[in-house]
């Protein structure tokens, strides 16, 4: 067993890049998450469209909530699989035994979940625009979606890690996640409603600031505490 060249593990950003590429490759090969998410969200939107009388002023009030309910519940599918799949096949132990910083693994998982949410929204935003006859392609809405995605993924990923080794993880994740997402839900729904109404930037900006602050706090704290949540 010769050791011709000294191995030099990558830095923090390099670890995130390698792990993110792995996440996306595994998802692309299996398609276990993206397709069920899109189908679920599309079905929810269609169900809402036929369940409510969404016309005139009611539409702008209800549509943001409907859109985000579909996104958040679909995200549970991705978040639930995020770590349970790794635990089931033992690959999480392989990663934790390697010379990576556990925080890098967390940030790679968050990034992968954000990308999955972006893919989901690339499908359901046009669908929502058609179903509800809304103008949804606006920069402020895109910014709201991005910050909302990061909020959902940052808290959802660490809770996914906490629940992954639990017996009733499918039930545990939504029970823990939805209460913690209340600030995100309020902020994204308000910001989305203002964006759809072409509201002034000054009205939207405070909600986006709340989202950005929430995202930063959860990303920072969770990346530091991540090892405690995944250790056996």
């Amino acid at each position: 067993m010769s050791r011709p060249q000294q191995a030099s593990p990558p830095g923090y950003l390099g670890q995130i890049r390698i792990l993110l590429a792995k996440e996306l490759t595994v998802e692309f090969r299996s398609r276990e998450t993206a397709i069920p998410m899109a189908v679920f969200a599309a079905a929810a939107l269609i169900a809402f469209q036929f369940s409510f009388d969404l016309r005139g002023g009611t539409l702008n009030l209800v549509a943001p909530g409907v859109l985000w309910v579909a996104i958040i519940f679909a995200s549970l599918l991705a978040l639930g699989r995020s770590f349970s799949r790794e635990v089931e096949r033992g690959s999480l132990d392989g990663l934790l035994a390697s010379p990576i910083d556990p925080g890098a693994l967390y940030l790679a998982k968050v990034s992968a979940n954000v990308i999955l949410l972006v893919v989901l929204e690339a499908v359901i935003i046009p669908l929502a625009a058609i179903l509800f006859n809304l103008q949804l392609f606006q920069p402020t809405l895109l910014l709201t979606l991005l910050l909302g995605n990061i909020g959902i993924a940052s808290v959802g990923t660490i809770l996914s890690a906490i629940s992954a080794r639990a017996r009733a993880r499918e039930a545990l994740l939504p029970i823990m996640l939805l209460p913690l997402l209340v600030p995100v839900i309020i902020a994204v729904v308000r910001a989305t409603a203002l964006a759809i109404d072409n509201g002034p930037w000054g009205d939207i900006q405070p909600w986006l600031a709340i989202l950005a602050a929430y995202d930063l706090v959860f990303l920072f704290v969770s990346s530091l505490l991540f090892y405690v949540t995944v250790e056996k």
Partner: protein
Amino acid sequence: MSAERAGSSAQAIVRCAGLEKSYGQRPAIRNLDLTINVGERIALFGDNGAGKSTLLQLISGLLRPSGGGIRVFGRQPWGGEGARARAQIGTLSHQSHLYEELSARENLALYGRLYGVPDPQARADALIAEFGLTGRRVDPVRTLSRGMTQRVALMRALIHHPALLLLDEPETGLDATSRQILANHITEQETRVTVVLATHNVEMGVSLTTRDIVLRDGEIIHDSVSLGEQRTDANRRRDEVTRLVASRAS
């Protein structure tokens, strides 16, 4: 950590002192003192639940001790601080640690990159050729047989030329050729790779190693180094280990 209890060899790469690990109220490792020096090849014996896998996971950084101390390459092996220690460890456990959607080559290249192997693809190809899986190197791992998957898992443990190799029942599922390749890696003297091998196969453990440790209920009940035994008589080693392991069963 008490240096007196852990031993003071300058070449020690693993030092455990008063090491404890419990799962809830159930102790798995109790007050364990152990020093492993560079180049040692150790066989870890014991019946089911003796603590072999737990000890390997503590050394590899997968588990954090409940009490006592452990240093591997001079560092605590777990968490972010343990990354430099873990970079020198290769582990093979009961699970393959592989991604079923990826091929053997992709899995090995992934771990090669994480360990900072200079040319991970070339290293992966070399190992795949050595273990005779070239014809299946691009097939997803989920399509491989159990024995083939175990071979890839073993390659994964070797991908970064580890200085310390932790093997938990590595022979499971391996055919004769693969066992011989594994034996060659374990007994390779050139680079003084340190090996800790947990196994129920006394014959194999004795033939591949130079030091026997027998665990029972999380405690070391026999360590051929600490007992100062001569390591030349394989038959005597085998009989002694077999007697100690069997004494519990009877």
